[in-house]
């Protein structure tokens, strides 16, 4: 493992992406859910990596496989009904081979997760301070008093007012924003190397969302945590991430540095999404302009086309698109899954 001191410089000064060793490297991850009609592939051929101190955004529509991917990385999918294949290496160690007990030791310690709905992971029957302290005690040892002190300190750091008092509250007594802060305090109490945040602010109001995202950024800069931020909101991704993976129908279809995604998308689906964003649009001659749309809907898991999964909605489709396009490099640090890249040629 790399010594901690080596990971402290702020992300701006990190070495070039190809020089830094990734904290987590995911290769060809696939998840099949067993169903009465046979296995359904919810995640297919997903490859990702995240470096220390950096944030990877995963963006995609509802059902595109963002949460299933996150849960697979955490080893949290039900072993009975979900078959996970591929490779997930954390600091060089293969996670998919680890037994459940070893994974449990990693979770909440080296790698932790924040969920969209905090009540799913906060136990309503325990005071929030106890829940954080318990995680600290389990992974870090020490006595209960020290763990409680750490819990209160974490609550203070995430901006919970009067943390000594709030630590004694039960989750239902806290507002949505406060619960989300508690989740972050709990996730970061053991200084994890990797934080997976699945829609951490979707349920929150924008002024609180801005506070929480700011807080995550600050804590990341202090500790050099690698973050995977899952969101369906391209604007949130734009403001928080270094790199972006765009998911469509269970696959990553494009992966690139954040600026490249917005300035020169290399997958037609990304292009369509960017165009459909409601924004401050000039109103020509008083008439309201129509928003560009992506026609059609996402194919269901059981009716995935054999070739490109976007073919039913893609205006750039050609005969070759009936064959599955591979994920291929399309420029420095970026890849796309489309037969027609570079797209620029299509706009000439």
């Amino acid at each position, binding site marked *: 493992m790399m010594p901690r001191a080596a990971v402290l410089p702020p992300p701006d000064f990190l070495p070039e992406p190809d020089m830094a060793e990734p904290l987590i490297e995911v290769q060809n991850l696939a998840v099949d859910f067993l169903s009465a009609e046979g296995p359904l592939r919810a995640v297919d051929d997903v490859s990702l990596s995240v470096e220390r101190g950096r944030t990877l955004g995963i963006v995609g*529509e*509802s059902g595109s496989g963002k949460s299933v991917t996150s849960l697979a990385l955490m080893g949290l999918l039900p072993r009975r009904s979900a078959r996970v294949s591929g490779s997930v290496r954390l600091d060089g160690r293969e996670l998919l081979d680890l037994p459940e007990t070893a994974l449990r030791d990693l979770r909440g310690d080296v790698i932790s997760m924040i969920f969209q709905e905090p009540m799913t992971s906060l136990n309503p029957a325990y005071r929030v301070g106890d829940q954080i302290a318990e995680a600290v005690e389990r992974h870090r040892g020490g006595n209960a008093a020290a763990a409680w002190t750490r819990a209160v300190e974490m609550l203070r750091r995430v901006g919970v007012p009067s943390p000594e008092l709030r630590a004694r509250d039960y989750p239902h007594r806290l*507002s*949505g*924003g*406060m619960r989300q802060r508690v989740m972050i305090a709990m996730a970061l109490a053991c200084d994890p190397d990797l934080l997976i945040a699945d829609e951490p602010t979707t349920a929150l*109001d*924008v*002024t*609180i*969302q*801005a*506070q929480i*995202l*700011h807080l995550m*950024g600050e804590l990341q800069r202090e500790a050099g945590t690698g973050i995977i931020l899952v969101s*369906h*909101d*391209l*604007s*949130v991704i*734009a*403001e*928080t991430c*270094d790199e972006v993976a765009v998911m469509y129908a269970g696959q990553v279809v494009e992966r690139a540095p*954040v*600026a490249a*995604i*917005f*300035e*020169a*998308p290399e997958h*037609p689906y990304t*292009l*369509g*999404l*960017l*165009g*459909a*964003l*409601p*924004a*401050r*649009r000039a109103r020509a001659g008083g008439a*309201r302009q*129509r*928003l*560009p*749309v*992506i*026609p059609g*809907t996402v194919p269901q898991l059981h009716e995935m086309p054999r070739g490109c999964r976007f073919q039913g909605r893609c*205006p*750039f*489709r*050609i005969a070759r698109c009936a064959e599955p396009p591979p994920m291929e490099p399309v420029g420095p640090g970026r890849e796309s899954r489309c037969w027609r890249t570079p*797209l*620029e040629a*299509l*706009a000439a």
Partner: protein
Amino acid sequence: MSAPQVIRAEGLSKSFVVGRDLLGRPTRRVRAVDDVSLSVGARETLALVGESGCGKSTLGRMVMCLIPPDHGTVEMHGQPVSHRSERDLRQVRRKAQLVFQDPYSALNPRMTAGQLIGEPLMLHDLVPRADRAARVAELMEAVGLAAPQADRYPHEFSGGQRQRIVIARALAAEPEIIVCDEPVSALDVSVQSQILNLLVDLQERLGLSYLFISHDLGVVQQMADRVAVMYLGRIVEIGTAAEVLDAPRHPYTRALVASAPVARPGKRRGSPPVEGDLPSPVAPPPGCHFHTRCPFAEDICRREVPALISGEAGGAAAACHFRDSLPPAEPPRPAATPSPALARLMTAFHAGSVP
């Protein structure tokens, strides 16, 4: 004002009992809406924005006369609506229709799309029985559904299609105004834009007015002629969309605009636009409700409720004691503008032309 507004609400207030003692006497109340006035003109869209629990839905339901206000009045085309008159209420409840957020729970799962859309026709006795099927087909077509889908049940439709059914159902009553309560919040971007376009089309074709409730400023920008911003039960700023969103006066509106994430790559640094949590609506701070989080708050803000009036320079009305002396707001951060090459590519994509 010449032509009477489609809907005008004056001084609406509503509180809910949220705690009772052993004898059932109320001990705690939430002032969900506190002395709010607004009006919506013909073919106009007034957007209502604000954070969770600020009273948007309660206000929308009072405007539609679905719940009676504690105080205040509602007029439709200049005619006061009496909550004691069944006829008045029936009239308003047909002319003002509601489309709300959750297309999953809004539809009875045991009725087909055709039955759901046909129900208001029957309820309000708008179309003779023999013509109902034809009218349902017409409505389905108007919202972009295929007539043969009339026999399907809600679970057989996608989220966006279900929202279309909800809209068709609202249109069936031949309304003049539709209260859209977060109509696209549960939908993905690509579906959201389809529904927003549909609402704009219907407005232009049928001359509808909208009271459009949303917390998403991008969506509001797309839809609104005027914008009202609510905070803890009160309107704190109201004006044209350009006034309120591009040059917000009230410190809360400024915080809201500055907090909204923008599709412009680059990590945001610096402190968040406002600190602190939303105060509890059960015990809102006295004076100006925003004073606990406002960077400009002074003593007077803790004592006196500011009036909702325009400043010396005119424009949007803002409920702030310092509406005329605040420093100018920072301009809103624009989304990234596409390069010419990207713009061409987007046009090609959305035109559906295959280069």
